[in-house]
């Protein structure tokens, strides 16, 4: 391979990376008295979710499709980065009546 090709590849990588349109955001989702708020959230791949558990009980955010399973100890905040696009219904494994939806754009 010639030197020029390397430069092209390098340039593509560089500009490719820079071309990411929006900066990743941090979105807060709280669990208080067995209620998830907000119950519907829109996000993008790469965004960080800050899962805030205000309860004295452990909770989980478990995707029905298996995309994620976040464990939240009592009164702790846990973060996770969204890796896959899709409309994901999730619930708490310990309190299955806690349900919410995350819509993740690519």
């Amino acid at each position, binding site marked *: 391979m010639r030197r020029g090709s390397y430069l092209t590849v390098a340039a593509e990588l560089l500009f490719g990376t820079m071309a990411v349109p929006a900066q990743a955001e941090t979105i807060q989702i709280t669990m208080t*008295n*067995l*209620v998830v708020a907000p119950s519907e959230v829109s996000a993008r791949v790469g965004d960080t979710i800050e899962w805030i558990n205000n*309860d*004295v*009980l*452990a909770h989980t955010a478990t995707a029905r499709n298996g995309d994620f399973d976040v464990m939240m100890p*009592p009164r702790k905040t846990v973060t996770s980065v969204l890796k896959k696009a899709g409309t994901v219904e999730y619930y708490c*494994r*310990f*309190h*299955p*009546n*806690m349900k919410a939806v995350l819509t993740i754009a690519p």
Partner: protein
Amino acid sequence: MFVRVSAAIAALSILGSAALAQGAKPTDAQIAHIAYTAGVIDIAAGKQAIEKAGNKDVKAFAQDMVRDHEAVNKQALDLVKKLKVTPEDNDTSKTLSKQATEKLAELAKLKGAEYDKAYVANEVAYHKAVNGALETQLIPSASNTELKSLLQTGLKIFQGHQQHAEQVAAKLK
């Protein structure tokens, strides 16, 4: 099953009538004792179910009950310590404990699917009764604001448990 369910309801309605009969509201020390006892009862029932239940949803539910009620009772203990209140044993707590011991013995005799159904049915009835007592008796009677707030949090948690128990019961049918 009807006997067990009505026993749970009877135990909790005693809670209301005993307090009313005396014409006095339960004190914070008594309320703390009643609430803590109600938690201990469900923890004992849950531990028995973890051992005995065959259905995996029932077993998971029982584990949730033990985990949550232990957490809430720990909060209650921390609070009474902070408030320097000594939980005071009383007739309601005694009746609850007595009924619960009898019920545990009844459930111990059952096996398999019969046990699973009876345990979950009792959990539905028990949480319903406890929530009713919290709403109409214990929360309104509590004078300390922190105790009242803990009871209110407890009520929300236990309402969630009741829904969860109802969902598990519906699946067993």
